[in-house]
């Protein structure tokens, strides 16, 4: 991944920066320029809650090459306590004991590496709360 592309996403990957529509209150992660509820372009920057629960999930046995050494690994859609939803891996968990509604917490983790030098791509993963 190019350095500028990586840097552009740091506020979201490291700090869960989102935007909230000033007019109708809808949260967007990642930020976007136009609200899809009220078409307002006025937003305030907010930080998402790091606590939430699993809405749906799966365990991958087959993965893109960058992630294949991690299989099997779980992926979930998580609804955070401020109602924003995000996709993330679940880690440090018993993959047979995941369930819809399970409380989880987001943490900063290594997601993947790339290139011969093993440059690390960081981001959020969820762990059982």
């Amino acid at each position: 991944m190019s350095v500028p592309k990586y840097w552009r996403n740091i506020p979201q990957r490291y700090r869960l920066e989102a935007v909230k529509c000033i007019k109708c209150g809808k949260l967007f992660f990642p930020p976007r320029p136009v609200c899809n509820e009220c078409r307002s372009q006025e937003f305030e920057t907010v930080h998402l809650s790091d606590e939430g629960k699993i809405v749906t999930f799966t365990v991958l046995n087959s993965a893109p090459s960058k992630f294949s050494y991690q299989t099997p690994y779980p992926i979930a859609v998580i609804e955070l306590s401020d109602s924003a939803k995000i996709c993330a891996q679940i880690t440090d968990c018993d993959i047979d004991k995941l369930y819809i509604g399970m409380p989880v917490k987001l943490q900063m983790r290594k997601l993947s590496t790339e290139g011969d030098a093993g440059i690390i791509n960081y981001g959020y993963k969820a762990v059982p709360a």
Partner: protein
Amino acid sequence: MREVAIIGLGIHKWGEHWDRSLSDMFIDVALKAMADAEIDKIDSMCVGCMTSGLFVGQEHIAVQLADYLGIKHLPATRVETACASGALAFRTGLAEVMSGLSDIVLVGGVEKMTDVSVEDATFALSTAADQDYEGYHGITFPALCAMMARSHMNRYGSTSEQLASVAVKNHFNGALNPNAQYQSQITIENVMNSTIIADPLHMLDCSPITDGAAAVIICSMETARKISKKPIVKVTGWGHATDTLALHNREDFTTLKSTELAAQQAFKIAGIGPRDIDVAEIHDGFSIMEVIATEAIGFFEKGQGGFAAEQGRTALNGELPVNTSGGLKSRGHPAGATGVAQIVEIGYQLRGDAGKRQVQNARIGLTQNIGGIGGSSLIHIMEAV
């Protein structure tokens, strides 16, 4: 707007064609469609292709294909909306004929997927998902569909066996289609015992990687009545809608909102409803997607799609035969070609040319083609005239 007719159909045997290039396959079906329509001249060409850049390292393929088709200086357009690129090419061609911009248009779809490794093909397909907020986290298409399947099961009580019954049905039909990639029947046990790709989805719930192309000739109804010697198929309904790119930004993971909206548009234009459809080609990239699509279009109540498939209601001899061609599961899924192949199949059905898989007295057919996990959906309705 002018009325539009389909007067030529072209397809070939899909599969892993190491001896054939993207243009070899495309020119083959283009010439077949022109021969089927008994014409030697077209006004323009619309091509659907998802990512020739990642699969064969060639963009600008509308030019290459027009060039190799041997029609000098032909206006040629290539469109892309992931796995629904074929249906989008059809819609683009429709717009040209309806508006009078062109009178006779060749609409084709093509994808050459086996020139790269399975890993690279998986990556190429995954670029239809949100690269920064899904792909970055190691999410794949099977994973997204698996999460939709789990939500559907959780809310409605659908089962893995019901999903398996979709794959079994589509293989049964594909075994009757000489152009299908897989012409073998499978059982519920085969599906349930196949490797789990992303639970609850098994290997045999997923469509394969395929090389293939398909083409149709469309023209104004007026021209069709003058030149066509075969039964004419009229395009009577069309719909197109989008949804959020990323799954997590949707309200409801158990439906396909873009398909619902596209179907409503198409039914309104055609002046008919879901009960009037005699045969349908549905985008079963994963078994769960056929289940959800049959609900979103309105064939069955929300939550009933899996039960309907299990009860044989969508089988070849059921009340609404779905995927008589074998669907993406058995005919194969060369991304950009699928939407056009669906139209070819409905064309055969409405002309009475579908051989061993012919649905008796099929008069009205529907196609549903989606990009990604329904970020885009296109519906077309066709009637025999």
